[in-house]
């Protein structure tokens, strides 16, 4: 069978599975729709969190980015895993004890304020849409390359599938489809990684393999790669080019953003007890670490392969995968010196731009570059779609519950019936899918780049007010509202300024303190902390019942089912 028929077969089979699960797990109540009824086991929740979390950025883009960035790519590896430590230690158990449906629920009740609730709703929707547009672009790339349909058609198919199971099943449907999607995506990620590791290093464990030696030359793989980089005029692979300060800030923004992303936080409302919330973060991180420790190995294998297979190759002899990807426009060769050979060289060379490779394609192209069997290529396509769809569904649920629960039920229309609230939730999910699809067809940037901004926004809005809400009883609504507004506005303004208004000035000499737009969320977060703490000092202390609420959040005993606490 050809690559295309394998892809078609595996993608359709996985879609049929998701739809089957969606029909089996229809949501009958708002509680099932928002938090899957609150009875998910910690292990299943860990797996669902891992799929919720690992998006098209993790699956499709990350190894490719690391492959091009070398050491600098560590920001993604540490940033997107280290946040789970913060989540486990500082957020998940307390939020589970609080027991709400959404993140704005917590903000509104803890800060005894409708204004705080509305600000949180706006932040949640803003963050989630930024993130979801990256997912839809991922869906489009997979479809356009492997099934040879237009990117738009691919996005429409993805929208229909997501709407079907998120709209029908809500959190309950999403949870169990995410468990299935995790299995698909991790299998699809590990198979080619193990194949490559055996082919290149003779060691079946990729995590160890990329520290091994090249059996042909007897030189350590990383050392060989550093040598090759030097020869072609790139910076050493294991050192990178970013400043230490910038690496620090980007990593911190991604970590804190992870802990502040609403679609991740709400997953911990779905387990029965505080202790389940704690252990379930641990499971989630194990499942995530499996992919995250494999990604840097794939990056090294892919880099070595690319440099060996195309450098100085006559263009007329370019392999089939090369011409296939050229057709999508994501890979291009421009013979600058007219010698008919493909040169791939560092940024200082006069022929630096002969070969341009879109970073988003490395994981998808890798099996073909290495000549793996056709079914592996198809499997990778199905895995990429699983990653993108599972995350998109989680994000759409945040948007839909922000509208139907926080905006309608808790703010504008408190007497809405259960049945109408459920209808509103489904309608909101439908509207959110349409907006997400539009953003997928007109994407504002690279997948991982767009996603990185969502983290900055989450870091600078939610993280500080949730932490202070739990750890400092003195934090007041005035402090929290001002902190959120200033934090997210500052961060968004810095990103928009350098990325969209003045992209030509987007370089280290113009950045504040040398901090790139990707890392500015850390500064936004510090600003939010400072503003919230200072303003809280000068405003009246929170009422006694809110202080009692904080006391009860801090102690596990007495976890009720998720319920609504009157503000």
């Amino acid at each position, binding site marked *: 069978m050809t690559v295309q028929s394998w892809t078609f077969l595996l993608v359709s089979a996985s879609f049929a599975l998701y739809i089957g699960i969606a029909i089996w797990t229809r949501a009958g109540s708002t509680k099932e729709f928002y938090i899957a009824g609150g009875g998910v086991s910690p292990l299943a929740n860990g797996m669902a969190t891992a799929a919720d979390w690992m998006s098209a950025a993790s699956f499709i883009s990350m190894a490719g980015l690391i492959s091009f960035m070398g050491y600098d790519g560590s920001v993604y*590896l*540490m940033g997107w895993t280290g946040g789970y430590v913060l989540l486990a230690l500082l957020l998940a158990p307390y939020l589970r004890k609080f027991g709400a449906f959404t993140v704005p629920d917590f903000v509104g009740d803890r800060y005894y304020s409708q204004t705080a609730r509305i600000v949180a709703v706006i932040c949640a929707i803003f963050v989630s849409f930024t993130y979801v547009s990256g997912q839809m672009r991922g869906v489009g790339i997979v479809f356009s390359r492997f099934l040879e349909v237009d990117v738009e058609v691919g996005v429409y198919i993805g929208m229909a599938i997501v709407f079907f199971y998120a709209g029908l099943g809500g959190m309950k449907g999403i949870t169990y489809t995410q468990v299935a999607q995790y299995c698909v995506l991790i299998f699809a990620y590990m198979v080619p990684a193990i194949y490559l590791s055996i082919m290149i290093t003779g060691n079946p464990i990729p995590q160890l393999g990329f520290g091994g030696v090249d059996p042909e030359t007897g030189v*350590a793989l990383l050392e060989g790669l550093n040598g090759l980089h030097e020869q072609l005029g790139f910076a050493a692979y294991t050192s990178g080019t970013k400043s230490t300060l910038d690496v*620090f800030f980007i990593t911190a923004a991604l970590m804190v953003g992870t802990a502040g992303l609403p679609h991740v936080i709400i997953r911990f409302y779905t387990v029965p007890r505080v202790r389940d919330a704690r252990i379930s973060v641990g499971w989630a991180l194990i499942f995530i670490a499996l992919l995250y*420790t494999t990604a840097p190995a794939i990056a090294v294998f892919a880099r070595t392969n690319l440099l060996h297979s195309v450098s100085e190759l006559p263009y007329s002899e370019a392999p089939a995968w090369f011409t296939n990807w050229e057709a999508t426009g994501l890979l291009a060769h421009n013979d600058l010196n007219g010698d008919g050979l493909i040169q791939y060289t560092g940024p200082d060379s006069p022929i630096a731009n002969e070969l341009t490779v879109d970073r988003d394609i490395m994981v998808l192209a890798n099996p073909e570059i290495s000549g793996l069997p056709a079914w592996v290529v198809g499997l990778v396509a199905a895995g990429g779609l699983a990653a993108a769809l599972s995350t998109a569904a989680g994000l759409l649920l945040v948007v839909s519950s922000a509208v139907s629960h926080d905006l309608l039920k808790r703010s504008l229309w408190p007497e809405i019936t259960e049945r109408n609230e459920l209808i509103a939730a489904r309608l909101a999910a439908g509207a959110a899918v349409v907006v997400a699809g539009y953003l997928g067809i007109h994407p504002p940037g690279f997948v991982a780049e767009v996603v990185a901004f969502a983290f900055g926004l989450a870091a600078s809005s939610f993280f500080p007010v949730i932490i202070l809400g739990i750890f400092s009883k003195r934090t007041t609504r005035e402090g929290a509202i001002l902190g959120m507004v200033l934090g997210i506005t500052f961060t968004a303004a810095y990103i928009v300024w350098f990325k969209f208004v003045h992209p030509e000035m987007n370089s280290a000499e113009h950045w504040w303190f040398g901090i790139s737009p990707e890392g500015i969320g850390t500064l936004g977060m510090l600003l939010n902390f400072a503003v919230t703490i200072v303003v809280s000092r000068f405003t009246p202390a929170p009422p006694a019942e809110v202080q009692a609420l904080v006391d009860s959040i801090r*102690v596990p*005993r007495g976890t009720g089912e998720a319920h609504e606490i009157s503000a």
Partner: protein
Amino acid sequence: MADSNDPSARPSGTDPETQERHAEYWRRNLRYLAGLLVVWFVASFGFGIILAEPLNNFTIPGTGFPLGFWFAQQGSIYVFVVLIFVYVKIMNDLDVEFGVDEGGEA
């Protein structure tokens, strides 16, 4: 009055003894958090970023990994996983010690 006889119904009970017990539980919790977060910071920001360049002068014996690079792309992640499981263990024990655990039935 009925509520005060059932400690699980009023976790933030108002009697001074319970309050003091909960306050001590919270102080112990904060101490654990501080210790774990120091490890978290050292393994990632410390070894993986600030000290990465000097550590890269050493290679892990038997492999081709420069040490700082390994911490940034592998070691820190393993440390994170271990940290969370250590946290789960010590907090579950602490809950039992202070009688604020949720029991096996709920």
